[in-house]
């Protein structure tokens, strides 16, 4: 006399997502938003203050102004770090927004594909420009 017994998991056994098991990607994402956010407060608010408020603000910005700043490795590193952290922070934020509001699987997939492509484009272009800037360009 054998009856089929339903497979009941032991209480408090770990919930598993998918076949690959748990990953802490979302935990890393949560932590990254907070850590990059703190650094970006200094980098971005400093950038906005210099570019928009101090010494005449945006009216004084032109090619020569950029050339003067990027002559210094300090501002090159500042801008490179700001570019990467801001783009990753923003792209991750938009990923979360897409996951929250796009309900159809296909919509989510296409929106995130466009998001990741735009992130790669911005990071590649921005990095290239900082590293190959030529102050003598005419």
């Amino acid at each position, binding site marked *: 006399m054998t009856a089929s017994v339903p497979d009941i998991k032991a209480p408090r056994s770990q919930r598993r997502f998918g076949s690959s098991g748990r990953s802490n990607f979302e935990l890393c994402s949560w932590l990254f938003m*907070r850590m990059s956010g703190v650094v970006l407060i200094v980098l971005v608010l400093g950038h906005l203050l210099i570019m928009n408020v101090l010494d005449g603000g*945006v009216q004084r910005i*032109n*090619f*020569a102004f950029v050339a003067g700043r990027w002559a210094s490795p300090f501002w090159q590193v500042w801008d490179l770090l700001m570019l990467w952290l801001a783009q990753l922070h*923003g792209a991750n934020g938009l990923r979360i927004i897409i996951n929250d509001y796009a309900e159809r699987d296909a919509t989510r997939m296409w929106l995130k594909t466009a998001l990741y492509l*735009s992130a790669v484009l911005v990071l590649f272009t921005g990095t290239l420009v900082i590293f190959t800037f030529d102050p003598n360009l005419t």
Partner: protein
Amino acid sequence: MVNGHENAPDLRGYDRFVVTAPAGTLYRGREGMWSWVAQRITGALTFFFLFAHVLDTALVRVSPDSYDSVIATYKNPFVNVLELGLVGAVLFHALNGLRIIAIDFWSRGPRYQQMMLWTIVVVWLVVMVPGAYFMLEHTFAAIFGQA
């Protein structure tokens, strides 16, 4: 017979224990919810601006003239007012981000979350008023003429 079911428990007299959700709970419709909404909106808007801004700055690699002409857009009085909006959005996102970190990592953060929101609103105003003056100085002069 209670509730239309013969075997349903008699709940008469227990009404005062029934918790009904009021129009606004501790979170919903209050400071906590609206600061969350504002954090999403300011973040998404800044993200779209960043896309345009990295590409317009990339024109320094094309020619000084093309960079100078795209930067001239930023000096336009109307766009200048939009820049003030961008600075205001980024500053709110930054200050509220610090508040979120305090709520997550400080043991008393959740208790003081409402007070912290009103604190950052005051800080935002204190920074934005002189900030707006310096950012719009040139635009005011351009529109109304130098006094």
